[in-house]
């Protein structure tokens, strides 16, 4: 089956920053992304879990599949939001079906 090279960008970011991140992505013309829930985790600021939480504690994971030539725009947009904040950005080479959707 015909596949096309793409980048899979995964951004793990604090929940209160989610709307800012997605707004920045949209402003940069990145309209496709998917948000996954996160149950808990651990990092330099210790362990946390979402269980029993009332507030918007914790992180979410935002996944973008993007054409390789659009990657830098995306990273620039993401970086302005993540910069001062807790957040991980990873970029993986991938292949997608139906490249016309990107």
């Amino acid at each position, binding site marked *: 089956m015909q596949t096309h090279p793409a980048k899979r960008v995964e951004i793990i970011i604090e929940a*209160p920053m989610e*709307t800012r991140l997605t707004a920045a992505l949209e402003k940069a013309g990145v309209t496709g992304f998917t948000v996954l829930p996160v149950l808990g985790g651990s990092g330099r*600021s210790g362990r946390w879990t979402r269980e*029993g*939480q009332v507030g918007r504690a914790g992180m979410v994971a935002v996944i973008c599949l993007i054409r390789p030539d659009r990657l830098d725009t995306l990273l620039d947009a993401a970086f302005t939001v993540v910069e001062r904040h*807790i957040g991980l950005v990873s970029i993986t080479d991938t292949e997608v079906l139906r490249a016309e959707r990107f």
Partner: protein
Amino acid sequence: MQDILSLAAANLLTPMILCFALGVAASLARSELTIPEAAAKTMSIYLLFAIGFKGGVAVNDHGLDASLGLAILGGVVLSFGLPFVAFALLKVLTRLSAIDAAAVAAHYGSISIVTFVTATSVLQSSGIASEGYMVAVAAAMEAPAIVSALWLVARSGQAAKMDADLWREILLNGSIVLLVGSFVIGLVTGAKGMERIDAFIVAPFQGILCLFLLDMGLVAGRGLKAAKGVLTAGALAFGILMPIIGAAAGLVVGLGVGLSTGGVALMMVLAASASYIAVPAAMRVALPEANPALYLTLSLGVTFPFNLTLGIPAYVAIAQAFGG
């Protein structure tokens, strides 16, 4: 004194407090008992809705008067002012950076709605009346403290990230909207509306509060366990002293604006309590450099239990002593 002690004892042996204690104990013993996030959020929505609605119905009953405006003003002044006191106290008691101290201060100017809810239920079971509009005062006190904290940060030469979006988020945060919204709905529909839904918002209220406090205990216990490092003796002292100072300020303002005994007690509770939902989220956005373990542990792990167990009965007794 006798009264305070017996009220404190009576308060300590209620299902609510014991549920909170159970939660803390279970966490510290590393039991895997947990309450689902969705359940915790739904219970908090229920509590906000019920307390707002009841407040609105009460105001519909007794009519609105000028004192509402005065009480809100008093609450807003407290919320603006207390962060300065908290900041100064932190500078004396701890070696926190300006940013950390300001972030903590924001929490103590703002309010904890669960502390408020618990206090109303203590008042109710003691047969002490209070102004229904105190829920509106509670809503009004959520945000101003954040402004003061950011001003404190700016004054120390650091930049807080404050934009229009953040303002909207803070002013229209879920608990303010729900509290004010259900207050207005109660105000509009009055006794007739209450009749329709009282079996939902009145009868099971204390039971749901029990389960919610169990969850709060679990979360607070987890926080305490994780935050051994941050809780210096100075910080701990702050977590106990600040609510007492806040309560004193609340007493003065409550008496000043002419609230009833129950109203004065609630104003003390609001001033003494520290936010652990709305302000933490705002701080993550505006002051990402501030240490969340610090303000969450102080607010939820120290001050919340203090108010729940000793604070509320003391504030009520003091309000009664002053109220006559």
